[in-house]
């Protein structure tokens, strides 16, 4: 070869660019935005009486309470998409070619992760703007607090996304992955502080919610939005997400190397 292989950073850049070319598809954009909008509409209507329930923090609007959770759970669901995206990539012949090229597999999965981070950021930003303009979401934490919640949602989603990528790289089966994703994400979402205060959950659900990392992520995001930072929850959410990210990417890279 007449050239030295590109540095891992350039490789990540090139590979992220490759995925972003696929994002230009308008159908993808609509798909990405529709689901959280539906969630937001339904939840804000169905649960609007929640704020009067006992155990609910006094003086807090349900929308202000709900929106950070919608951000976090949407970010977490995007994690399943990240796994599905990698499973799809594994079916694409070009990935088999990467195995024969001086391309590091860490760059392949990191690029996938960056791509999903970009997609998720656009999705959450649209959701946030829509909530503000259409539903009158103006939490005490202000725009800055809302953005804090959004960034945290992205961090959590990226960490979880790495786990689903690792899963995808080893099971190599998109359908199975979606099933596993649904079967874990929905219980995790509902057995958490996302939609009702943990104290209002029935006993066994409460037990799950207390150890569920999503509870900490939601509590921390909610802390930002409500203008009362929840530092311990934030530390827990960031800690768990970083561990998941590093371990997930490492395992995913090893899995992708195996044909």
């Amino acid at each position: 070869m007449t050239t030295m292989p590109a540095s891992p950073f350039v490789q990540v850049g090139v590979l992220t660019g490759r995925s972003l070319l696929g994002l230009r598809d308008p159908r993808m954009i609509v798909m990405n935005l529709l689901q959280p909008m539906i969630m937001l509409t339904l939840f804000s209507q169905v649960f609007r009486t929640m704020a009067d329930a006992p155990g609910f923090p006094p003086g807090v609007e349900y929308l202000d309470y709900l929106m950070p959770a919608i951000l976090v759970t949407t970010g977490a669901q995007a994690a399943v998409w990240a796994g599905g995206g990698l499973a799809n990539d594994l079916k694409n012949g070009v990935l088999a070619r990467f195995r024969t090229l001086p391309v590091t597999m860490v760059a392949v999965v990191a690029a996938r992760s960056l791509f999903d981070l970009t997609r998720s950021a656009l999705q959450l930003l649209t959701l946030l703007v829509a909530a503000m303009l259409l539903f009158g979401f103006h939490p005490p934490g202000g725009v800055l607090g809302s953005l804090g919640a959004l960034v945290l949602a992205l961090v959590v989603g990226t960490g979880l996304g790495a786990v689903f990528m690792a899963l995808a790289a080893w099971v190599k089966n998109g359908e199975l992955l979606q099933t596993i994703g649904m079967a874990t994400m929905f219980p995790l979402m509902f057995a958490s502080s996302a939609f009702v205060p943990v104290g209002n959950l029935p006993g066994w659900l409460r037990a799950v919610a207390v150890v569920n990392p999503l509870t900490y992520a939601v509590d921390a995001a909610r802390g930002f939005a409500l203008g009362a930072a929840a530092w311990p929850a934030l530390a827990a959410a960031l800690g768990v997400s970083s561990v998941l990210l590093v371990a997930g990417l490492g395992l995913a890279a090893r899995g992708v190397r195996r044909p």
Partner: protein
Amino acid sequence: MIHAEDVVKSFGTHTALDGVTLRVPRGTVLGLLGHNGAGKTTLINVLTTVLPPDGGTASVAGFDVVAEGAQVRSSIGLTGQYTLVDEDLTGRQNLVMIARLLGLSSRDARRHAAELLESFGLVDAADRKAGKFSGGMKRRLDLAVSLVGRPHVVFLDEPTTGLDPTSRIALWETVERLTREEGTTVLLTTQYMEEADRLADAITVLSHGRVVASGTAGELKAGLGRRTVTITPSDPALASEVLSRNGFEVGRELDAVHVPVSATREVAVVVRLLTDADVDLAALTVTEPSLDDVYLALAAQPRGVLQ
């Protein structure tokens, strides 16, 4: 340039490579001939560092495929049995992406891609998605992609299987140009004797994960497969009789007579016998043995006759 020594690879209880040894000198083309399931793709996977061997050693461009995988990957190009391009990207985007991954600057990558599109006759289709390419175009793009960065060693896994005759010949010409102009070392697998014959300097026959013969195309055919002389004589009955009387196996089919011969000079014998018997020949063709003939002959002989 490529060196495999006693390479073993199993999938569960099935042994796909059962001690394969071969050598491809720099700048030459080795044709690896074998039926479906012979182990051709598995050997390529081992040599391109995709699969680790269970036993034996192999090196490519001087680097060990296990210990120096990264260096091997920097020296090779692969056109796989199934196309290894991104079907969601255009032909040009595929080439630019690979060039960028191999360390070319954005500008050099674009230029290199444009050159390859030009020399592979893909300029008109360059900006269409690869998924929309015809089979022949896809193979050409795949070959072009595998040549990005001018690898010293190129692996071609059944590059023309499933192609129509025109695309097949176009691809052969491309491979010939590559080896002639770039001096690239090539390992090519195929199920077609004709393809190996045309492109390869040497041929290795693989069967059930073992090398059953190797040599030049001429050696293989002369030693193993029998050619068939097909004639259209003025008097088929007389021709058959004369030839059988002189010890030839003879097959009749309408006006044609088939005579298997084991050496080139026997063609001359056939002609002389018929001339002496005053039989005129309206047509005479000599058909090369097929891969099947070679296999059948190999099955009847002890291992490694030609090695």
